[in-house]
């Protein structure tokens, strides 16, 4: 998120600015295409030779190639601006994904997800705060970790930074912990989901509830199945939509203690923090539900969404730098790991309960 904001804030002529993005965009596209090629080649080979081989999705290949390049080589500066756009492509992909949901689906699944999200946010905030205090972390660092794990990862931490006037050091600790945990989730969630035989819907809701960063939640869902990926995005979007309320609560708390500026217009504050891409997602879904697109066009929109996500997954791998993550403090990371494991168990219980009651 930080990088993607940085690339947007630069002052230069629009053409020069777009030109600066091209090398990184080409790198993202090349990694994505290579991932698709590897998936198709392995599947083609296995089919031609009648070998039973588990289908490893392009998502995993894109992340793995990105991880290898980003961790074994120093990516030249010329690529960095373009790589930073991966979060932009994530948002474009989410808006276009609205084409795969009728408003009725969003009403049903979104309603259940929203209910679970309320419980998840409350439980995560309490858990992280208790753990942070037990480990003796600084109060604002505890808040950042709690907000990051309860709502939407890095975006929530950045949103809270200004509102609660947190130190830069605490912010970078929290972001590093959330990113490291996101990388671990990518590997563990699909494995656990398959091991305990979760359905696509149940797994998607679980990934959307428990994985913190939107890019990682999308990837963790897509690694399980296409349907799980779509459900994970819907659930995660419900979580993202509540970011403003959580940050506002913490901002008021610190303002009352005299350690942050008071919030003047609360409605304006909520609107500023609200993720606007949710409105685009709903707009496309409403247009599809009203019959504005024929089946072929809906398929095209869904495929455009997949292309946008492909660039995102390549970016997720490239920006996860294990060396940088390992330089961060051990205590915040330990609190993060413990908290995330407990949140994963809590949300799994929630999903199992919801599946039993409503049949996800």
């Amino acid at each position, binding site marked *: 998120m930080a990088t993607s904001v940085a690339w947007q804030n630069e002052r230069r002529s629009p053409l020069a600015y777009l030109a600066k993005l091209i090398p990184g965009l080409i790198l993202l596209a090349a990694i994505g295409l290579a991932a698709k090629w590897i998936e198709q080649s392995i599947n083609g080979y296995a089919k031609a030779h009648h070998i039973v081989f588990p289908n490893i999705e392009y998502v995993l290949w894109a992340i793995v190639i990105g991880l290898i390049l980003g961790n074994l080589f120093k990516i030249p500066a010329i690529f960095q601006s373009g790589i930073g756009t991966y979060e932009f492509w994530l948002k*474009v992909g989410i*808006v276009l994904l609205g084409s795969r949901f009728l408003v009725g689906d969003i009403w049903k699944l979104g309603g259940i997800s929203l209910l679970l999200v309320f419980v998840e946010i409350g439980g995560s905030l309490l858990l992280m705060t208790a753990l942070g205090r037990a480990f003796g972390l600084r109060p604002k660092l505890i808040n950042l970790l709690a907000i990051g794990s309860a709502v939407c990862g890095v975006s929530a931490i950045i949103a809270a930074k200004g509102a609660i006037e947190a130190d830069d050091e605490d912010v970078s600790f929290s972001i590093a912990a959330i990113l490291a945990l996101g990388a671990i989730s990518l590997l563990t969630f699909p494995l656990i989901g398959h091991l305990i035989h979760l359905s696509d819907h149940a797994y998607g809701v679980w990934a959307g509830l428990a994985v913190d960063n939107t890019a990682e939640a999308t990837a963790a869902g897509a690694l399980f199945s296409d349907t799980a990926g779509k459900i994970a995005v819907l659930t995660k979007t419900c979580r993202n939509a509540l970011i403003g309320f959580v940050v506002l609560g913490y901002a008021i708390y610190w303002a009352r203690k005299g350690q942050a500026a008071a919030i003047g217009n609360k409605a304006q504050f909520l609107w500023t923090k609200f993720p606007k891409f949710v409105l685009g997602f709903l707009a496309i879904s409403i247009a599809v539900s009203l019959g504005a697109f024929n089946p072929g066009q809906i398929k095209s929109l869904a495929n455009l969404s997949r292309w946008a996500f492909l660039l995102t997954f390549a970016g997720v791998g490239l920006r996860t730098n294990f060396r940088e993550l390992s330089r961060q403090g051990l205590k915040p990371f330990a609190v993060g790991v413990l908290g995330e494991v407990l949140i994963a168990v809590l949300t799994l219980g929630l999903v199992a309960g919801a599946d039993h009651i409503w049949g996800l």
Partner: protein
Amino acid sequence: MAEENAQRKPLLSLDWWAVLLALALATLVRAGVLKQVSW
């Protein structure tokens, strides 16, 4: 300082640019300019 910050403020947020691009793509698909996007 305030003037400098105002100057640095982007025209639209990243979210709005993403919404605009997605809606523009949807319009192109609807108009038949982008036909059968394959995967």
